[in-house]
């Protein structure tokens, strides 16, 4: 199924895309990756919800809709305005005037999709009456239907097998046409890209009855041009408040009052509710109205008016309209029984592919994924082009990305290499200019350290320095032959220095070692120095002096440890 080429109305304008990470982080199916500076959409995952269009600051994401030029292909053009169109204008423009406007911009007739919503309401109610699986999920929002196919495939059987009002409207309008009409064209006026996709590649039927889909924004622009020229009294319109209410969140649930309904809008919220259903919850709910756009269809990314303002206006409009007349309701009953609104194709799940088709291999790759993820910084910054660290780990395991795609991992690697290079540079042979190794005697003279014990101990080369006041740290991490800078002066430092095979100790901060410390150093054959400098300065000076020197020849351990006499 995933191999079928998918039509998508959501597209990328490569000239405008700056490769920023806004869209990848907002996509509900993690379908977008930034590659080569462009936000590329993975077709199998995209549900055409339009979130990326909404969030793109560069207007690089757009929906391909038909243009009004396509009206010329047909001899009789019918507009199918979504209920949300009527919410784009304020109360001063009544619905009848908008129908007039649609005729004025080139349509021969108009069929209100709100009428189809009335039929869909009845079909939904019939489904709820004869099918007991709970909760049933609305099929009205095509982005939600696709989201279920891709992300919640086990829930496809719970989608009400009834066409969305757009499709029902095309069928009803076609059935009303006089026989004399040749080549009619049905044009849906859409608030969102999901419905454009649904008309081009329907999931509930083989072929859509809609011939073209126009962007609501484009139609709005035409309407505002012609509306002032219309002076006759506005024509009547048919649909009820129940039908028009479908254009906003909560409208379906309101239309199905009497059933236990739950209404959710905004695609992230929808995903959370669907996850709840997948966990076996919400079985006491009969029907879930789920709309991908916040506010419902009035929140679609092809609309013009502020969704919250539009939502309020649509509610007010719906409340003033009369209910569906009884005679019409009876006619609808016949249409529903004839199956006018029913899906003719069973909706199929389209689950995202696992990490491998082979189950054993997939489990091994999941293990790799977790290990890879553990090594990533976990900032979810998106600068690698994947929406978060987990998605990058998955991309790496699938062979679609590499660890150094993570900026932080790359910079770690660069630092490692730089340190390695610097180390190699320090190892240049003395003949090429590297400084010769330094002995303890030479260091103490240059840095002005005073010898407190070990005058009789033979001088030796040092391998480096170590600064710490924590004895267990010194035992664990100081290396043989180093000079130890510390603020501690008690006798135990001698034992630690011997244990760690250090070349000597410098007690910093002008502290005087206790008499037992001095005696211990004499006994163990250890050079003990004192300096008035604080530990930071002493360590800094030592570091500067030793930097760039080669390590001196290492003295044999025996002669070193026993220099001052046996214990």
């Amino acid at each position: 199924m995933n191999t079928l080429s998918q039509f998508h109305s959501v597209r990328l304008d490569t000239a405008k895309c700056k490769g920023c990470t806004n869209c990848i982080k907002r996509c509900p199916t993690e379908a977008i990756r930034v590659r080569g500076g462009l936000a590329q959409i993975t077709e199998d995952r995209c549900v055409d919800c339009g979130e990326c269009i909404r969030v793109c600051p560069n207007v690089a994401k757009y929906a391909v809709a038909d243009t009004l030029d396509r009206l010329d292909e047909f001899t009789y053009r019918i507009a199918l305005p979504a209920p949300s169109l009527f919410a784009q204008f304020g109360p001063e423009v009544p619905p009848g005037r908008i129908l007039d406007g649609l005729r004025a911009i080139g349509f021969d007739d108009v069929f209100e999709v709100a009428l189809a919503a009335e039929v869909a309401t009845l079909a939904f109610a019939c489904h709820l009456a004869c099918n007991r699986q709970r909760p049933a999920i609305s099929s009205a929002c095509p982005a939600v239907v696709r989201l279920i196919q891709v992300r919640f495939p086990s829930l496809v059987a719970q989608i009400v097998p009834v066409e969305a009002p757009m499709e029902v409207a095309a069928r009803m309008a076609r059935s009303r046409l006089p026989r004399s009409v040749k080549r009619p064209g049905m044009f849906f006026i859409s608030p969102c890209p999901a419905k454009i996709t649904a008309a081009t590649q329907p999931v509930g039927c083989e072929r859509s009855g809609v011939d073209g889909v126009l962007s609501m924004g484009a139609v709005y622009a035409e309407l505002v041009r012609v509306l002032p020229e219309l002076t006759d009294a506005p024509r009547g319109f048919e649909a009820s408040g129940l039908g028009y209410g479908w254009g906003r969140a909560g409208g379906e649930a309101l239309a199905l009052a009497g059933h236990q309904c739950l209404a959710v809008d905004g695609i992230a919220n929808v995903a959370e509710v669907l996850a709840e259903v997948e966990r076996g919850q919400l079985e006491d709910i009969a029907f879930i109205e789920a709309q991908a756009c916040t506010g419902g269809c009035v929140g679609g990314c092809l609309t013009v008016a502020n969704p919250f303002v539009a939502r309020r206006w649509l509610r007010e409009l719906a409340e003033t309209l009369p209910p569906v007349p009884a005679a019409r309701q009876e006619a609808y009953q016949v249409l529903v029984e004839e199956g006018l609104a029913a899906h003719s194709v069973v909706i199929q799940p389209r689950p995202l592919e696992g990490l491998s088709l082979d189950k054993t291999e997939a489990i091994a790759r999941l293990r790799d994924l977790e290990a890879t993820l553990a090594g990533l910084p976990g900032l979810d910054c998106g600068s690698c082009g994947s929406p978060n660290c987990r998605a990058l780990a998955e991309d790496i395991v699938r062979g679609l990305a590499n660890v150094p795609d993570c900026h932080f991992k790359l910079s770690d690697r660069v630092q490692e290499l730089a340190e390695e290079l610097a180390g190699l540079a320090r190892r240049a042979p003395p003949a090429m200019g590297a400084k010769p190794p330094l002995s303890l005697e030479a260091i103490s003279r240059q840095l002005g350290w005073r010898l407190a014990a070990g005058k009789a101990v033979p001088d030796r080369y040092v391998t480096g320095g170590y600064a710490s006041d924590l004895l267990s740290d010194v035992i664990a991490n100081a290396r043989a032959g180093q000079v130890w800078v510390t603020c501690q002066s008690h006798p135990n430092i001698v034992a630690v220095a011997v244990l760690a095979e250090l070349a000597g100790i410098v007690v910093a901060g002008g502290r005087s070692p206790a008499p037992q410390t001095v005696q211990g150093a004499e006994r163990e054959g250890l050079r003990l120095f004192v300096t008035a400098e604080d530990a930071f300065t002493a360590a800094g000076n030592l570091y500067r002096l030793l930097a760039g020197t080669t390590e001196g020849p290492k003295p044999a351990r025996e002669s070193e440890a026993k220099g001052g006499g046996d214990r």
Partner: protein
Amino acid sequence: MRVEHAVQGMDFTQAGRGTATIQRALRQVGMSPTAIRRATVVCYEAEMNIVIHAHRGVLAAELQPGRVIVTAADEGPGIPDIGLAMCEGYSTAPPQVREMGLGAGLGLPNIKRHADELDIQSVVGKGTTLRAVIVDDDAAGR
């Protein structure tokens, strides 16, 4: 491959996270949607049991080709009579939990219905370990 999640008793705000983690792993290893659905119900009920009844516990899933083994091990009061606990409607959940619409005594029967194998070991005063096996559809020839 083992996926696990620590669960804290009475922490209702985080309840369900362990289930979501396991569910994601099952998707990635390509388990069938219906088997994932059954495993999800088992995990969620087991996770909620820890939240409602136990002090703390660990929800884990051992992913194997063709099946998943879910374990929920908790430190808690234990179950005195497992046979009784398996009866639909029997519950020892405290009233404040029942007010949330939980603890209706459907959890264990629900797990039993969705799992292919179920084993519960419990020591009163110490804790409970639940082990459930969910076999993938193609592996079970469903």
